[in-house]
């Protein structure tokens, strides 16, 4: 990882990652919600691209908006809907695990700062 990552405030890259994970979770939930809507096109955030853009100084909105891509369906359906529930659920779980890990890193950092303040 490039150096600027460590210069992004108290919690490093984890704060940014958590925001992006949260945004991606909303987007995948939107796909699952629209599983039965004709002509709905599923979208997802390319997490790596978004995080790299964020580290290089893009704002949260810019980074996420630039990394949004339309899902390519494995098998197109007649009603023009490109949501494949199985794939969306896999992406959702993967993202949820990523969110939980990032949160764990973040809460370790918070603990560290707390200990430093208390002078233990």
């Amino acid at each position: 990882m490039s150096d600027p990552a460590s210069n992004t405030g108290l919690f490093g890259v984890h704060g940014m990652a958590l925001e992006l994970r949260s945004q991606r979770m909303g987007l995948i939930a939107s796909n699952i919600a629209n599983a039965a809507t004709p002509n709905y096109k599923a979208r997802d955030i390319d997490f790596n691209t978004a995080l790299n853009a964020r580290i290089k100084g893009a704002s949260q909105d810019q980074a996420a908006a630039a990394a949004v891509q339309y899902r390519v369906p494995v098998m197109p359906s007649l009603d023009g809907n490109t949501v494949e529930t199985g794939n969306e659920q896999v992406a959702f779980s993967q993202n949820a695990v990523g969110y939980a890990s990032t949160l764990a890193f973040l809460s370790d950092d918070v603990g560290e700062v707390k200990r430093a303040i208390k002078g233990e």
Partner: protein
Amino acid sequence: MAGTDLNIFSVAGRAMSAQQVRMNTAASNLANASAVSSKESDAYRPIKAVFATQMDKATGLATVNVSSVVRADATPVRQHDPGNPLADENGDVWAAPVDESAEMVEMLDSSRQYQNLVETLSTAKQLMLDTIRMK
């Protein structure tokens, strides 16, 4: 309604209401599947919920609304049943044109999607609670 901000909870919540409307229409159709009437115009015609995406430009989230519930333009089935008290002068009754297997499939599909939304909602809720408690 257009100006409201969406979050993951409202996305899942509204989609659940939409699926519920869809389940209700399937249930109505199934309940009326064996209904007959004495006139073609009086016969029950199946109803169907029409889904439309509601997009929130600010957050990029999208939920689903029921834009309308339409009555299908299907022709009722004429059955010859002179013993039926509802039969017309030719001894015919008009049965509701409900495809029962299609309605059952619709019901199953809808309930599976509802379950997916519940699962999504509970995962999101757990993660949000963990974030609040920072654990």
